[in-house]
């Protein structure tokens, strides 16, 4: 049962997100019926699931929301701000209830219950007058068919008309079996066997069935349940079931639909107690009258089967709705091809593919060594396939960042209200994909940056107006791919970071000393230092202890980086760079002495020979540009003699180039990243490890750290000698 609870809680949260997103869309003026229906469906699914797992607090509360949404969906009420606010509060409350469930508390405590009641109270105006309405969906019985009090007459029997198909016996079924089964559901109050269809004895085929029955059936069973009784023969027989207290018109329609003579059937109905004679007579009179006068109601003379009548209307409506929302349909089509897979299964697959990649590399190596051309050929075909499998497998885990971004609409809305600011949230690149494991971990840092931007970045409308800016502040969330990384930007057009204040604060906190000379960028980067916070007033939304240093640390843990550009009065731009996946990369293998090092291929720009190995300086002139470099041999203290010829691998990260000097270039290969584990968590310069075809472990270079190290060294040099062009450090790496 725990598993179901788990599934429910994951699902409910997803639905809650969908609900919230939909509500925000509605608030912004979206009136697409599919949006409303989507929100309704989300509430509906939560309620349904809660019912199944017996979390009645959630079921009951969600039911209230569902009712409001149902009325909205049916056009009985209009969207308005108060309603959306209350519904959003409702979403929050469901979230709270789910949290409680997650912590093992199935019944809310008094405070929570009171909060829920408050919200329900706020929703009451939208629930409509009929209190009964509220109960309608809770226990959906089959009494959905209109019941009418036919002139005070009560008929507590179902009326079943059945004409068995000719082939029912031939197909191995016995009409009596159905009737016997029917008795499981209730009692037969009256039955008339119709043999009207029976031909003369000589024309009769004993293998065919000519029988029909008119049955008055007393039962508490649902219509569906009664229909189920006749399920086996439904395709071939003519079956009509009228619920107790059906309208007279429905009996009339029934009579019309059946093959026998009207009067004969009428008599049967009267005899079985379904109709009174008066009703029958009046009804037949009315029907024929209308036939002449072409009455204004839907009761046309050729009424035919009521079932069919309704069918003829509905599909058209459905179709019309479908064409009207072509865009929606297309989106639906995309959705419908989704399959839900447990993330663990995917992880397992990716692990296996990783092993396959390594095993493949090993086989390839052996094949090449063997000198057998055909074997080498075969393994290289295999390698290509493995590469495709790897890409496809990784693709499975790719998700769009849009869902993560959409959460911030709510944040924007709440901050706007709470701080009386006007904030417009603009999202670009929502369709940009990245690994699910990265998405999961980026949410918190992103939330922090966005809240900061809204809270501290965007000024009050008055301040903005005074500065000649539009009163509405703008926060942008951008995502795009850039050379093997995904870049996420949080941009605001607020006041920007105050460098003087940062510097003063940093001195106060002892992060820097008075008199330290720092470049503007270095000053700005101080915000990422531990224990730094420039805001005097701690607000409700951000600045609660968690600083930018935590943001940076979390991002660094994903092998990513964050940096900031800011301009006083014009705003700030935080740029997060993350690897697309945490599992597998294309690597470029290099050798230094006996050791092998892997450089992520998408960061490699080019390789050049280091012509003069005797140079003492740590930069070269690369086509007129200064290229700082690190010598891996020196940095890593690799034993052995420096060879006569060395190579520089030119790498690029976040727009900065640097060189990594190695002995040998060993070529490209696919590689599975094996984390080095917590033991090495403080290590810099090495990003992970991988297993080569030989079985040997090779280290993967942390290019980002090496590049920033180059840049820092270069900057120091620049300070001392003005002859070299200065390269700015973007420094916020780990």
């Amino acid at each position, binding site marked *: 049962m725990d598993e179901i609870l788990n599934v429910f809680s994951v699902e409910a949260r997803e639905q809650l997100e969908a609900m919230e997103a939909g509500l925000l869309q509605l608030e912004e003026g979206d009136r697409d019926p599919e949006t409303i229906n989507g929100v309704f*469906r989300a509430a509906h699914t939560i309620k349904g699931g809660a019912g199944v797992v017996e979390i009645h607090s959630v079921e009951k509360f969600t039911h209230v929301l569902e009712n409001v949404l149902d009325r909205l969906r049916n056009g009985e009420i209009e969207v308005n701000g108060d309603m959306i606010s209350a519904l959003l509060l409702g979403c929050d409350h469901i979230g709270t209830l789910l949290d409680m469930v997650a912590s093992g508390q199935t019944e809310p405590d008094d405070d929570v219950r009171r909060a829920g009641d408050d919200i329900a109270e706020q929703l009451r105006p939208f629930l409509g007058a009929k209190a009964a309405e509220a109960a309608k969906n809770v226990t959906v019985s089959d009494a959905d068919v209109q019941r009418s009090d036919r002139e005070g007459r009560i008929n507590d029997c179902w009326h079943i008309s059945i004409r068995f198909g000719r082939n029912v016996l031939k197909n191995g079924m016995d009409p009596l079996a159905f009737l016997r089964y029917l008795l499981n559901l209730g009692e037969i109050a009256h039955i008339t066997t119709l043999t009207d269809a029976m031909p003369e004895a000589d024309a009769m085929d004993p293998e065919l069935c000519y029988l029909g029955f008119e049955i008055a059936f007393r039962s508490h069973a649902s219509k569906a349940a009664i229909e189920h*009784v006749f399920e086996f023969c439904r395709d071939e027989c003519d079956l009509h079931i009228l619920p107790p207290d059906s309208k007279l018109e429905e009996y009339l329609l029934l009579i019309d639909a059946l093959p026998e003579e009207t009067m004969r059937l009428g008599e049967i109905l009267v005899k079985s107690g379904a109709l009174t004679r008066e009703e029958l007579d009046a009804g037949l009179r009315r029907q024929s009258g209308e036939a002449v006068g072409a009455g204004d109601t839907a009761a046309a003379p050729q009424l035919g089967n009521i079932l069919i009548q309704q069918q003829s209307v509905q599909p058209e409506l459905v179709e019309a709705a479908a064409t009207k929302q072509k865009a929606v349909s297309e989106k639906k089509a995309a959705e419908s091809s989704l399959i839900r897979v447990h993330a663990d299964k995917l992880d397992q697959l990716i692990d296996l593919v990783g092993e396959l990649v390594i095993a493949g590399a090993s086989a390839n190596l052996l094949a090449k060594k063997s000198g057998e051309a055909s074997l080498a050929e075969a393994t290289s075909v295999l390698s290509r396939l493995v590469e495709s499998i790897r890409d496809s497998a990784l693709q499975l885990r790719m998700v769009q960042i849009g869902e993560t971004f959409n959460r911030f609409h709510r944040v924007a809305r709440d901050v706007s209200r709470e701080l009386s600011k006007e904030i417009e949230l603009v999202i670009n690149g929502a369709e940009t994909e990245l690994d699910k494991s990265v998405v999961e971990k980026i949410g918190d840092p992103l939330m922090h940056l966005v809240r900061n931007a809204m809270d501290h970045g965007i000024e009050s409308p008055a301040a903005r107006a005074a500065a000649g800016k539009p009163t509405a502040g703008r926060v942008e969330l951008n995502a795009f791919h850039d050379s093997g990384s995904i870049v996420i930007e949080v941009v605001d057009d607020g006041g920007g970071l105050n460098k003087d204040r940062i510097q003063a604060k940093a001195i106060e906190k002892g992060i820097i000393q008075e008199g330290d000379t720092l470049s503007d960028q270095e000053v700005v980067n101080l915000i990422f230092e531990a224990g730094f916070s420039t805001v005097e007033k701690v607000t409700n939304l951000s600045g609660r202890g968690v600083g930018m240093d935590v943001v940076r640390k979390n991002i660094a843990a994903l092998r990513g980086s964050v940096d900031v550009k800011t301009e006083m009065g014009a705003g700030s731009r935080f740029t997060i760079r993350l690897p697309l996946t945490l599992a597998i990369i294309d690597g470029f293998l290099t050798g230094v002495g006996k050791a092998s090092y892997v450089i992520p291929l998408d960061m490699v720009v080019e390789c050049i020979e280091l012509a003069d190995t005797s140079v003492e300086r740590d930069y070269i002139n690369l086509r007129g540009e200064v290229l700082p470099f690190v010598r891996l041999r020196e940095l890593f203290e690799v034993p052995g003699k420096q060879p006569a010829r060395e190579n520089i691998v030119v790498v690029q990260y976040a727009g900065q180039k640097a060189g990594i000097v190695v002995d040998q270039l060993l070529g490209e290969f696919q590689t599975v990243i094996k984390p080095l584990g917590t033991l090495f968590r403080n290590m810099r310069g090495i990003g992970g490890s991988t297993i080569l075809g030989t079985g040997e472990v090779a280290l993967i270079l942390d290019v980002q750290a090496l590049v920033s190290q180059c840049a820092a060294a270069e900057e120091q040099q620049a300070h001392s000698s003005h002859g070299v062009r200065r390269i700015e450090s973007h420094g916020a790496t780990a």
Partner: protein
Amino acid sequence: MSTIMLVDDSATILLSISNILTKAGYAVEKASNAAEGLSKFKSGMKVDLLITDLNMPGMNGIEFIKEVRTLPNYKFMPILFLTTESQQSKRLEAKAAGASGWLVKPATADELLGTIKLVIR
């Protein structure tokens, strides 16, 4: 052993019902949307009963069973809708599309199994 195909976009429902069915000795095929279900049918697998949700994102239950009924192997397969939908018109529409019957959510295990026993051949 009879095989029952279960289609519902709610993972909770999918899991809980399949647990009930499996315990009762049925083989269960699960699909979380109509398209997935349809592709399983198109593969020609043996299915003795289809239980499907009505209101699903993407292809809804009615469109779904209409498609299923066009496949020769499943012309006579019993189909049950699992829904809370209360509109009679929807039900009629569904019946016309080829549904055999209804199960009202949340159904108890007894209701569910009782109905299945009736319809399954």
